[in-house]
């Protein structure tokens, strides 16, 4: 509690981690019995997307969007993700011809742009436009987007964007097709960082206006046709986008319409009923447990439910600045009941996701399965009590407060945790805060909580994005997501070391070791790898969720006839 107030800089990594609440949408298991002949998406038609947000913006600097959701319909980046069912997600070239060439031991990265890539007004995209896009993300007015690059680029921490007459010298454009990034330290995951939204081109000199995201210069298959906040965002084709240079985006529907401000429960109801235009729609929010239960009894809707195989790790964060004894924290590992948590999350373990015992999520390269605190799925309250007694807390713990966000059923999940901890004489009061207040309370400088419930999906499929944002001491209290306020100099050192390892397999081994090392100190209790479920209308095809991320691929979805 006594941290001095740190300047609230736009924290870089913090932004990154988007919590899983970002809407995404879903995909599907193929229609099996329901649709004997698998219908494939055809060219044409209008695809409807139903998010719960009132606004929709395509500002790359402010976006935390995944490379396969809304923003990628309009913008291309230097690199992007190849997301396919049954295959690991890989980083692939998008505007660039390759995923970057490292020199200087991973400190300098060079990209070359493809020929014949154009903005929606027909002007060719040059390296200066990409540089301008990157620089723009440093402007305080356009903060809030994924910011892994902001501390990594040399001079980044002091740079305030291109609109104050200065440029970032560590991004060089020797010719219109070449762009070079000079980093302050070696960073093996730079090809993934180059797939972040800020690496989308913005025409040099443009984008100074606050509402740039409402009608940006498009490089992807679509551009904005019409935008009415709270009503709809309508996208039409960008005729200067060509499939020749873009193997990743399907660009199948003629139009994509976001119907804004759709309450999640209403969305599910509409999609279950599957009438009119809703047949061509999919929901961008998670299907709630109550609706999942309803869908289980409705074969038609069940065949249109798409559930990811795995997903974000849901965890109970223990504020290590308040609960300082690792023994006490370890007691939580045994006290929780992961079964009731699964049921509270989605009604059944199959829909909720597997029990988690590691910090690196399933499907991430380098992950090693281990369990430092073996216990039955319902927990081991006796063992928890014994650990508390050893730590001199035989009477249990009283008056701990647990903060949760009101979104995604977290209050109900918190009650499952509360009831489980009570078995080990750990008495917890739940404090629910709405989304923004929760983020401010947990990531701000004053930590007025003992426990917090959260979940984390890495921003790119590298263990780096699992561990660094949550456990690096630089992510405490300045907007970063180290909400257990875990600070271990040894871990910090190893994280920097693993980050600078360019070879992914070698890096993977290092990350796996860090994973274990962190969990020995028990700053968080991993609960489950949360599956996400999404619903689609009957005419939406090629709507699937791959191994990573646990969100549907918007880029391939289309309409079947």
């Amino acid at each position, binding site marked *: 509690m006594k941290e001095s107030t740190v300047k609230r800089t736009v924290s870089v990594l913090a932004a990154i981690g988007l919590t899983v609440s970002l809407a995404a949408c879903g995909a599907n298991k193929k229609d099996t019995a329901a649709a004997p002949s698998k219908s494939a998406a055809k060219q044409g038609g209008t695809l409807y997307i139903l998010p719960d947000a009132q606004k929709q913006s395509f500002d790359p600097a402010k976006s935390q969007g995944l490379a396969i959701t809304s923003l990628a319909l309009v913008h291309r980046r230097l690199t992007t993700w190849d997301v396919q069912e049954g295959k690991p997600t890989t980083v692939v070239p998008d505007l660039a011809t390759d995923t970057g060439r490292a020199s200087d031991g991973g400190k300098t990265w060079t990209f070359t742009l493809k020929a014949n890539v154009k903005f929606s007004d027909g002007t060719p995209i040059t390296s200066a436009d990409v540089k301008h896009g990157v620089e723009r993300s440093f402007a305080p007015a356009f903060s809030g987007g994924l910011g892994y690059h902001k501390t990594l680029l040399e001079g980044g921490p002091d740079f305030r964007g291109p609109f104050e007459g200065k440029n970032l010298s560590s991004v060089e454009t020797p010719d219109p097709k070449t762009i070079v990034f000079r980093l302050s330290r070696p960073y093996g995951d730079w090809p993934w960082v180059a797939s972040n939204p800020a690496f989308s081109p913005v025409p040099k000199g443009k984008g100074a206006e606050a509402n740039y995201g409402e009608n940006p210069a498009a490089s992807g298959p679509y551009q904005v046709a019409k935008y009415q906040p709270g009503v709809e965002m309508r996208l039409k084709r960008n005729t200067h986008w060509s499939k020749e240079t873009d193997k990743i985006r399907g660009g199948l529907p003629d139009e994509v319409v976001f119907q804004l401000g759709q309450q999640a429960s209403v969305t599910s109801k509409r999609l279950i009923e599957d009438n009119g235009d809703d047949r061509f729609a999919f929901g961008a929010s998670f299907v709630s*447990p109550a609706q999942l*239960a*309803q869908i289980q009894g409705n074969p038609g809707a069940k065949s249109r439910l798409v559930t990811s195989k795995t997903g974000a790790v849901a965890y109970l964060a223990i504020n290590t600045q308040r609960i300082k004894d690792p023994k006490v924290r370890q007691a939580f590992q045994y006290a929780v009941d992961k079964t009731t948590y699964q049921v*509270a999350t*989605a009604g*059944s373990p199959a829909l909720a996701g597997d029990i988690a015992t590691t910090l690196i999520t399933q499907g991430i390269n380098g992950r090693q399965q281990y369990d430092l605190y073996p216990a039955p799925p319902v927990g081991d309250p006796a063992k928890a009590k014994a650990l508390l007694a050893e730590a001199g807390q035989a009477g249990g713990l009283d008056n701990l407060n647990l903060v949760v966000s*009101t979104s995604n059923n977290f209050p109900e999940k918190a009650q499952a945790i509360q*009831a489980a901890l009570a078995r080990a004489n750990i008495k917890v009061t739940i404090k629910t*805060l709405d989304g923004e207040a929760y983020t401010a309370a947990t990531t701000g400088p004053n930590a007025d909580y003992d426990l917090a419930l959260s979940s984390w999906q890495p921003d790119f499929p590298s263990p780096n994005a699992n561990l660094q944002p949550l456990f690096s001491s630089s992510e405490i209290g300045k907007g970063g997501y180290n909400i257990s306020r875990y600070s271990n100099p040894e871990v910090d050192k190893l994280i920097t070391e693993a980050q600078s390892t360019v070879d992914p397999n070698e890096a993977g081994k290092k990350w796996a070791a860090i994973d274990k090392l962190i969990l020995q100190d028990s700053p968080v209790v991993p609960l489950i790898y949360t599956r996400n479920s999404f619903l689609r209308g009957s005419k939406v095809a090629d709507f699937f969720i791959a191994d990573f991320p646990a969100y549907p691929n918007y880029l391939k979805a289309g309409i079947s006839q």
Partner: protein
Amino acid sequence: MAAVTASPARSVPAAVGRALRADRAAAAGAVVLVLLIGLALAAGPLTSVTGQDPYTFDTSALDPATGAPAGALGGISGKHWFGVEPLTGRDLFAIVAYGARTSLLIGFAATIVSVVIGTVLGALAGYLGGWTDRAVSWVADVIFGFPYLVFMIGLSAVAPASLPRELLLIVLMGSFGWARIARVVRAQTLSLAARRFVAASRVMGAGPWHVFRHQLLPNLWVPVIVVATLSIPGKIGTEAALSFLGVGIPPPSPSWGRAISGAVDWVATDPMYLVFPGGALFLATLALNLLGDGLRDAFDPKTGARS
């Protein structure tokens, strides 16, 4: 206004008894209310019959495929009289019974706070008149028009977690609910103050406190009880509304409002989850309204007793 025409200090219990005998609806309300109070008081022994409590999760009572209650009608069985709560398997009868405790406790306690504030301020305004009267009437007007639900939501969000939420709700609802009582008491006091027994007392040298205690109060009980009875259901409803919105009684303390809020999502799959807590809230507010209406009809000559 000659609201009180009988002898100055008639016995309140006897008057209530007469009113109930005369009005069947009010009597039915009183019976339901007594039953609900009994349920609240005996929540512990009643739930221990089946070995249930409102806190323990029991996933074995749930359908393993969906998390909805296993069995028909929300899982009603000899063990779970009202079935169980989806996703948790907690006993719904225990939740409703312990929830009655929360609702009635808060409803009654907040009303007592309102009655104390309203009676004192109303009597002061009516008896002293002048600027006291103007100030009280003005504040009461403000409170009538004040969007206090919004205010309470805001305050609940910033109140420290260490402050007992029940106490906060009681104090808040109590201090926003006295205006109507103050108005009724003020009007009554104005008419009483002009009466000879009050004048006589004053002439003999009695101070305002003595007059209030011994001359006014005995004549104010009946109208106060009527207004108070009618205001309890509103307070129970407000507590339920706040809990429904997630800023009322924090979990795990059972609350009808929170149960109803959870049940709304489940209406299509498990309607019984809404029926029981919703029914309890409906019965409690209906019973108190019937009782209050009956008492008002019996005591207030202006409305004309129906029988």
